[in-house]
């Protein structure tokens, strides 16, 4: 699978948050996107996940031009900063609910994913009582849950302890050849360690770094 962003621009209230972005993403590679806070990293992730319609530019999927929203038809696994899951559900219930919206996810898979990120599948506590680190782990678990073809991770190791960070890194490397992975972080060392191709973003402009 190949996704091309050509001259993508996004304006919000006349303020340009993404400017003439060109990117090519191919299956099997891990891409890194490094940039300061407010540089447009998260906005680019939203465009790539089909949640947001760009104000200008083209998107191609396997050399065929598609509508921005059609990116949602690609099985996307997404972790975004400061987004919440359902407060009234447990971690297990959250994953069962989300996993069955577009796929038919079984309990075994949910338990496996919770275990892989270091959460207890039998934990009966509600999401609202989770610590920041636990919430982040659950968000990562839901992103990997359905074997995504496009994995978009925005600051995945935020608020996570060192031991769990290793687990997450291992998870990112597992099965990488079957998907496109885009890793966003302001921590350059994480990106340098894991990524094959690195982009940088500043003031909404993206540049190929390596």
């Amino acid at each position: 699978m190949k996704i091309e962003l050509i001259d993508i621009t996004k304006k919000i209230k006349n303020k340009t948050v993404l400017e003439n972005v060109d990117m090519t993403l191919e299956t099997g590679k891990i891409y890194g996107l490094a940039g300061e806070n407010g540089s447009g990293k998260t906005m680019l992730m939203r465009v790539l996940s089909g949640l947001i319609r760009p104000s200008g530019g083209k998107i191609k999927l396997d050399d065929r031009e598609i509508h921005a929203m059609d990116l949602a038809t690609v099985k996307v696994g997404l972790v975004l900063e400061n987004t919440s899951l359902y407060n009234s559900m447990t971690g297990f219930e959250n994953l069962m609910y989300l996993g069955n919206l577009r796929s038919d996810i079984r309990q075994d898979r949910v338990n496996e994913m919770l275990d892989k990120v270091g959460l207890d599948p039998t934990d009966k506590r509600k999401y609202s009582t989770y610590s920041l680190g636990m919430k982040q782990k659950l968000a990562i678990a839901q992103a990997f849950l359905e074997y995504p073809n496009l994995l978009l991770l925005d600051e995945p190791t935020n608020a996570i302890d060192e031991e769990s960070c290793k687990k997450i890194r291992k998870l990112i490397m597992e099965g990488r050849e079957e998907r496109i992975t885009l890793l966003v972080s302001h921590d350059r060392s994480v990106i340098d360690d894991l990524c094959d191709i690195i982009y940088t973003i500043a003031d909404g402009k993206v540049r190929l770094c390596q």
Partner: protein
Amino acid sequence: MRDNSSLIKEFILIIAVFSGVFIIWNFVFLAGLIFGVDIGENKDFFDNFENLIFLTALTVDDGWSVSMFAISESMVFMGLYGAYWYRRMDIDGIYYFVRQPSRKKWILKTSLQLLGITAFWGLLQVGVPYILSSLYTDTDFSFMTFLLFIIMYLSITLFNYFSVYLVNIFSMRYGTVISFIIVYCFYIFCFIGMSFTKDNRYPLAYFAPTEVTLVKWEDDIGSIKAFVDINKSTIISLSVLAVYCMTLIFITWCNVDKWDIGLKSRENV
């Protein structure tokens, strides 16, 4: 075995208790809306009322007083349902919509879901009391009247619920002011209609351009009776509702792919 009069009293008592609970609920709810509900930093249910547009159909009491924000039991439901969708689209929408390959299908599915909930609510609110009143009073039960009664109530509540549901979606996209204008223009039209109908008993009557009794709910001492009079104006009234609902669905259908999910309404204009 108890006689009919004691059963009627029991029935009235049950209705009264339910009404009382609803009224208290509604006042708490309305107070929360007016004064704002703040329960700290917990980003939970009540936070969602911040940008929520809250509507109810014009409700008129036996006098000629009209209230745009009349308290009714359906208001609670509409508020909860409106908040639910607001939350879906604006707060929790990220992980939900990334798993929705077709938003248009989603709109259709949720509209049908809404119809189902409304039908159930209508049955509970109107159907059950009507059946009970037929059983325990001298009102003859007529299946056709019952059916028409349900359809009529369904239309009214559907109008309410669709307004809340879709106007909240509009508000996320276009802001609350425009959404209010869209809906209240329609309500003003209804209000003008009312001045011609002279029938202030039920909101549906406002839509009728000529004088007509659509549904009358009479609670004379211990007896609940339903009269459904179908005529030309009834058809017109229901058509207006149908056109209204269909228009809202159509506008949503055409625009849903253009909406940015996960941005706050102020960013989304």
